[in-house]
């Protein structure tokens, strides 16, 4: 009973907080504490969203497509790199700093270069997303592989398991949980990465839409677009959660 009350609390407390914030925002703009040409009110943002909905859906589809392609590519690269780093110690030592350095380069800084090299098409967007998403995947998978109990590997060897069998039966499942935490972070990076790449040139996508409405001072539509980007990121994260739920059935038993 008390846990049910607690669960209800977990829903209504953030909901009420959100409601208060929105009402305050609406109030501040309506009263004129902040000039309306600088900040649209929530109701204006909603009506802009409804008005531009067909347009937004088209652009969102483009962005989601780039993000998904880039994410798949990033995960594939991350997987291969993590496996090589784990299997061959020198590779791990050699690549560890490079992987970390690649993360210190801000995506906003590389995006113009990618556009310069690969044009205004989909390729620079997918590459930027892949570049920003492979890191969390690599790090989480590599960490997961390395966390495997030595005794477990020894035990597998006494069962005459081959390297491939040890990888498949022990290392991969052990890394699966950490992989999904990494993937959840990557999923949010994916949308942001795609939008940044679109800012710098392109024909469709939420980043392109944002640049256009900003130039025409359509701040209400800009806010609508930001809300949609957040929604897309949240949706992608939920998808990752769902995939984790499906792929790791033993976790459900452990949580009980």
């Amino acid at each position, binding site marked *: 009973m008390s846990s049910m009350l607690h669960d209800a609390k977990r829903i209504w407390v953030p909901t009420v907080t959100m409601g208060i914030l929105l009402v305050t925002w609406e109030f501040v703009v309506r009263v004129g504490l902040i000039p309306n040409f600088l900040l649209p009110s929530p109701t204006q943002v909603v009506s802009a969203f409804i008005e531009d909905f067909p347009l937004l859906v088209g652009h969102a589809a483009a962005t989601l497509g780039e993000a998904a392609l880039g994410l798949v590519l990033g995960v594939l690269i991350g997987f291969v790199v993590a496996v090589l780093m784990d299997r061959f110690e020198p590779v791990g030592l050699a690549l560890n700093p490079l992987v970390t350095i690649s993360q210190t380069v801000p995506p906003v800084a590389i995006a113009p270069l990618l556009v310069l090299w690969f044009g205004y098409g989909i390729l620079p967007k997918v590459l930027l997303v892949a570049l920003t998403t492979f890191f969390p995947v690599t790090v989480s998978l590599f960490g997961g592989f390395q966390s495997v*109990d030595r*005794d*477990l590997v*020894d*035990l*597998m*060897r*006494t*069962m*005459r*398991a081959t390297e491939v*069998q040890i990888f498949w*039966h*022990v290392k991969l*499942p*052990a890394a*699966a949980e950490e992989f999904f935490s990494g993937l959840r972070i990557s999923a949010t990076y994916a949308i942001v990465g795609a939008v940044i790449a679109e800012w710098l040139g392109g024909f469709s996508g939420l980043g392109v839409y944002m640049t256009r409405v900003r130039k025409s001072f359509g701040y209400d539509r800009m806010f609508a677009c930001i809300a949609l980007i957040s929604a897309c990121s949240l949706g992608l994260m939920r998808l990752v959660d769902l995939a984790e739920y499906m792929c*790791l059935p*033993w976790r459900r*038993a*452990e949580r009980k």
Partner: protein
Amino acid sequence: MSDSDGAQMRAVPALEAKGLGLSWDEGAHMVAEGIDLHVGSGEVVCLVGRSGCGKTTILHALAGLTRPVEGHVLLNGVDVTGTPGQVSYMLQKDLLLRNLRIVDNASLPLVLSGMPRKEARARASALFAQFGLEGTQELWPSQLSGGMKQRAAFLRTYLMGNDVVLLDEPFSALDAITRYELRTWYVRMAAELGIASLVITHDVDEAVSLASRVMVLAGSPSEGRPSRLVGEVLVDRMQDAVDFSVTHAYVDAKREIMMLLG
């Protein structure tokens, strides 16, 4: 192994170590020297020693995971020095894979050797009752108690198909009552299945309550004194004694071992 080997098996011990010398650094510093031991079918032998005297190193060498710098490991008379996969191996940690159901954990050795999953599950499942695991087939390891997990680990060990099992402090992580139950259970199962067991432990009580023969290992490799076997104590265990641990035989064996340990 065919039935005609049966007579010979009694003469040749299931597991035998001859003059084993072990080192952590390729012979520069010896951990243990002159280790001679033998375990027969259905027999439970214990190797007792203080922490850090190199017990686990000896176990790894017997399991073929490491190569000794001196001596040989023989299995039913055949030299298997440095070859893993010839003897089974069980640790204090149950080492069940948490992503596999109990029946899949138990049947893992069969699957690894190429048996189809369905067949392997059926073979393992048929043994669940005998191992006191009835009804746990489809559960995850996290849903089992410590004692049940060790039973499942022992079933997996048994399904490795070797007649020699090495155990490293197998029951020391369990609570006192479960530990007591499982020791009794293990001795019975090992005899029933005809398994030769070598248990390695620092716990004198564990040694006396499991083994019919206890070998005492003493030395301090970290101080430059390699461990050696300093004595052997026969435990006169009364079969089916309800409480062997309060008998004179038990206490006498325990006292003798403690004196040898120094």
